[in-house]
Every structure is written in C-alpha cells, then in structure tokens.
C-alpha cells in the first residue's frame, strides 16, 4: 500500500495505490486523518491504482467524507478501477459521494 500526496492550489490530491484491506486500512486512516487534522478540506482521492477495498476501507472513506462535509469542504474520488467501482455501486457509495472519471475532471472548478 503506497500513499502519495501532492497539491494543486488548495486541493490535496491523494493517490492510494495497492489494496485497502484489514491490514493496510490502519495506515490509510492515519494518513487521511493527518491531512484533515492539518486543515485540508478540499480533497481528491485518486483510486487509479487501487485494486481492492473492503468494508473496513469503506468505513474510513465514509468517516473522511463526513468530516470534510462538516467543515464545509468537499471530497471527490476519481479513476475507480472496475472491482472498486462494483463495491462502490453495491454499497450505494457511488451515489452519496462525488465520483468522477479522471483526476482532471475532479480538479475542474474545485
């Protein structure tokens, strides 16, 4: 699991490469909470190289989304792989979160 962060203006772009499962979820949660703690409230999660996510991983995404919403910010998720998209679809996450095709689209008028 590799997490890389860069910025575009005041938007934090986080690339999550690998798998979010029971083992790696702790790292992901720690990393994202750190960013929120530093005051980030505009965030793009790039799932281009994320091949797997389980319900524990979804829980972390939900917590992050709720927290950003509470601070009047916005979370966008882009470039879902097919398996992850399927999980997002069956759990209803595709409809409650802003999910777009590409990173460019995600950054568009953020």
């Amino acid at each position, binding site marked *: 699991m590799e997490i890389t962060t860069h910025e575009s203006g005041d938007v934090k772009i986080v690339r999550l490469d690998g798998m979010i499962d029971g083992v790696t979820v702790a790292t992901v949660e720690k990393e994202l909470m750190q960013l929120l703690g530093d005051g980030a409230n505009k965030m793009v999660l790039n799932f281009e190289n994320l091949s797997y996510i389980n319900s*524990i991983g979804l829980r972390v995404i939900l917590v992050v989304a709720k927290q950003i919403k509470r601070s009047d910010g916005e979370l966008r998720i882009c470039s879902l792989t097919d398996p992850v998209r399927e999980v997002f679809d069956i759990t209803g996450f595709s409809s409650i979160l802003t999910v777009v095709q590409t990173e460019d689209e995600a950054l568009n008028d953020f």
Partner: protein
Amino acid sequence: MRLFTKTLVLIVILFAVIAVTISLLSAQILSTSLTAEYESKGRAIAEGIADSSTEILLNRNLATVQAVIDLQGEIDGVSYIFVTDGAGNMLAHNFIPEIPAQVLPLARISSEGKIVEGISMTRVEIPGRGTILHVHAPVLAGLVGAVHVGMDLEYIENHIWDIVVREQILMFAIFLAVVGIAYVFVNRIVQPISRLAAFVRALATHEFASELDISREIRSLSQKHTGEIRELADSFIAMETTLQQYLRDLEETTSAKQRIESELSIAHEIQMSMIPKIFPPFPDRREFDLHAKLISAREVGGDFYDFYFIDERHLCFAIGDVSGKGVPASLFMALTKTLFRATGGETSRTASGILGHLNREISRDNDSCMFVTAFCGVLDTVTGDIEYCNAGHNQPMVIRDGKLSMLPKSGDVALGVVESAEYGSHRLKLAPGDQLILYTDGITEAMDGQEQFFSESRLESALRELKGHTSRIVVRGVLESVREFTADTPQSDDMTILVIQYRGPDAPAVPTLAVRLKNRKTELQRFNDLMREFGIEHEIPEETIFRVNLSMDEILTNVLRYGYQDEEDHEISVVASWDREWMTIEVHDDGTPFNPLEVASPDTSEALEERKIGGLGIHIVRTMMDEVSYRRELDSNVLTLKTEPREG
C-alpha cells in the same frame, strides 16, 4: 344548529317584535282615548260644580260649596277641586293639609291652554301629585268666580301600564301555546328526516351480515308517511337491499375465485414437490452432468421429470407430459412419477420394460382416459451406452461430436392408451462430451404474440449456440431463448427441459482448495493469495476471484472480530471448489453462534449525513455471492457461499 332550533329562534324574535309593536300602539291609542275621556270628565265635574254653585257663590254660602267639593273630590282620578272668587281668591278647596304653592298662580289663569266652551284646560306639574290636567271653569263668565278641578294624569298612566302588562302576559301565553303546537308539528316533519340520516350513517358502517335495527323503523316510516318522506324511506330501503345483494354476489364470486386459485396452487405444489430440484443431483458422480428445469404454467399442466440410479452403474431418467391441465393432470402426474420410481430396478432394468410396466399399470383402471407421453432412458455410466424407449413423446435431440441431431421416431403409443401395447427398446451411444436433450411440447409449442410456435427449428438453433456448454448453461440458455421469443405472452403450458452430458468414466474431479486458517489477521492475506493462485491455475475469471476474496475478507474479519471471546488459538476451515460454473465455498468456524443472514442490510440509498457506519460487510457478501446459506452444526458455524462468473 338543528333545523328545529333555528326555526324556533326565528319565531321568538318575530313574535317579540310584533308583541312590542302592538303594545306600543295600543298604549298610544289607550292613552289618547283615556285622556280625551278624562278631559271631558274633568270638564263635566267642573261645569257641574260651576252650574250648581252659581247661587251658592252669589250668596257666599261657602259651607255648601265645601260640601259639594268634598263630594265631587271622591270621584276616581280627581286630584283636587277648588273654587275662587272673581278676583281669584281661594273660597273653598279640598287640599289636605294645605294648598301647594304651585296651585296659587293657577287660580288666576283663565284664558290659557285648550279652551272648550269657555272652559280652559292646561297640564301642570305639581310636586307630590305628578302631572295634573287642570280644568278651569268660570262661573258666570268669571264674574262670580271659577271652579278648578285637577285630574290626576298619573292615574291614567298607571292604568295604561297595567293594561299593557296584562296584554303582554296574555300574548306570551298565546305564544307558548303556538310554539307548543308548532313543536309538535315541526317534529312530525323533522323526526323522519333525522331518522333517515341516522339510517344512512348506520348503513355506512354496516357489514350487512344481519339486518340493521333501524331498518325496521325506516320501513314503518314508509308506511306512516306520505309524500317526500315516504319516497325517501322507500328508496333508502331499496338501496340497503341492493347493497346487500351486491355484497353477497361479490362474496360468492370472490370465494369461487379463491377456490380456483387455491386449487391451481395445490396442483402446482403437487407437481413441484414430486420432482427433484437440487443440482447437481449426485455431486460425487463425475461420469455425467445432469440438469433439468420445469416451469409450470399458471394453469398447470402435468409435466414431470425424474432420475435415479438403478444400481451403482446405471442411471435411469425420464421426462413426461400428462394430457390435460390442473389438479387432475397433476394428480395423474404424481401417480405416473411414483410408478416410475417403483418400477426401475425392482420390476425392470430396461427403459422399454419400465415403460411397458408403467403402461399396464396406468391403463388398467384408467376411467378418466388420461394418457402420458414419456421418454425413458437408462445410461451405462461406464460405457456411455443408453438404452431408451419413447412412448409418444417429443423426439429428444442429441449433440454428438459437436453435431446436433434428433433421435429417430420410434412409433410407440403414449402410456395409458392401449393396455396391451408393446414398447420397443432402442440404443444410443454417447462419447464423453456428448449431450442428450429431453424436453416437453411446452418448449416447442411456446407461443409468441403472433401465435407462432417456438418450434423444433428454433430449439435447434438455440442448442447450436449453446454447444460446448455444461448442462446447466444449456438448460438456462434454452429457457432464456424461449422467454425472449414469447416476450409478454402468458405461458399456456408447462415447460420442461432435461439435459444429460456424458463425461466418461475418467472425468477429472472438481478442483478443490482446502485451507485451515488460524484466528490471526494476517491469515486473510494468506487466503487471498492462495485463492488468487487457485484462480489462475484453473482459469477462473478474475472478477469471480475478486468477489470471492472480498466476500471471504468480510466473513473472516467478522469471525475474527466477534467470533471469539477468549485469547485461545482457533481454526477456521475453508473449502472452495470450482466445477467450471460454480464456485462453492464452505466456511467452518467454532466461534459463538452467529447467522450473518439475520443482519439487516444497510439502507444504501441514505444520504451521506445519515449513512451509518456498519452492516456493510454482510451486505457486500450477500450482493457479491449468488447464494449464501448458514447452518449451525454441532459447535460450528457453517456458512456456504456459491457464485458463478458474471458477464461484463
């Protein structure tokens, strides 16, 4: 407010206005006439005294004057009388005890006020005596003196009031009498109407099981009254009767309909309970792959299929279609199927023998003249040889060496027609991979909107497209083609299809992955990796492996989290098998009893703010897998997951 009360209030107001107006008018008239009378009375008294006292006055016999005054003063309404001389000096009077100061100026007045024949009349206010009509009658044109009479006007007023009050009392009494009569009269009109209203209210909540108490009342209303009330009552009674009749009719039709529906569902249940529905039927037999499906029509025909081993080596199978529909057909089907089960192996070991025996049994007491078309076969699982017999049934199709053909007609008659009929025996050899397809006419005679049959040729082309697939896929594929063809047209007959593929005696066993996991988090990753390797090795689609791994991740996470209350080591056993179509996984854990299927699914349509955290894992498993079942076995939870590759 009710109609009656309204009317009453209106009448009271009208009456009050009339009563007061009449009283005022009569008081006015009375007052005028009484005053006139008073005036003439006063004048008469004054004139009388004046006439009679001329002499007396001339002689100055005052004692006589006083006597006259006292006498006249006794008359009702006379307040006072006094006599003056020509200069206006008081000669005699009946004032007691003394003359009021206001009277003195009157003694001199002679020509004021209303003058009639020399007598003047004025109204004056005298304290203690009220309003007085003062009559002044001069004696000998006033030379000798004058007589003064004061008439008490208050007496008149009192009199008038007395009369007005009496009048009012009388009128009120009359009014009460009138209202009483009106009440009785109005009641006679209103009472039936309010009873009719009560009847309608009662009718609205009535269930018509029994007659309403009020109905009798309404009926008597119709007899007692005439005109509108009778018309209303009559039509209300008619309405009740019509409603009762309507409801009775409705109840009858509904129960008749329910009876038919329940008979149909009984027929359906009989039919479905008779046929084997679990596939694969013999999981440990690799030599063949059998799948079948019966879809009953709404009206239920008498289709059936069945299969069983006569001995270790020979599989007997059959498909059939009973003539007719509904309960009779399904009962006959049950009989035929039961006989089929009892005959094979016991009475006969060949298809022709079995059908021959079946025919004799069915024909013997076949009063209802029903018959059954059937195809029966016996497969030698070692050689692939099939001995078969066809009793008037649709010709099965066979896919041999990749070529589709129809089995030749055998010319044997349907079961139950001729008791003495002989049934011929035929042979067919299947090589590993060959498939035999049995079906009923519900398939080939399924109709589309233009009343065209699905037909053998469409069945053939559907089968050609399904070449190379397992029996289960072929069954599903054919039924899908039929459904596509018929579209919305209701199914009129049962549809049954049975497919057997011979695999040969050396068919490979189903690939299996058996893993024993410890209750550690890191074991999830290990299972995940093993499953991925298993998938690559057996060419299982990647998406299937992904769904299996995600589901297993959720299940094992749950077991690790909630299954164990102690710190001991536990073992979770997972057995996964892949039969080229289905991935079947069985998970055994010795944790606390927990049935994940009892967990409610989260509402996945909830907005972000309302979305709860939790319950997602089980939801993912249930959606990712095609079948999930749970059972508690001794000290273990056993969860079985099944899934097949999904397209796209």
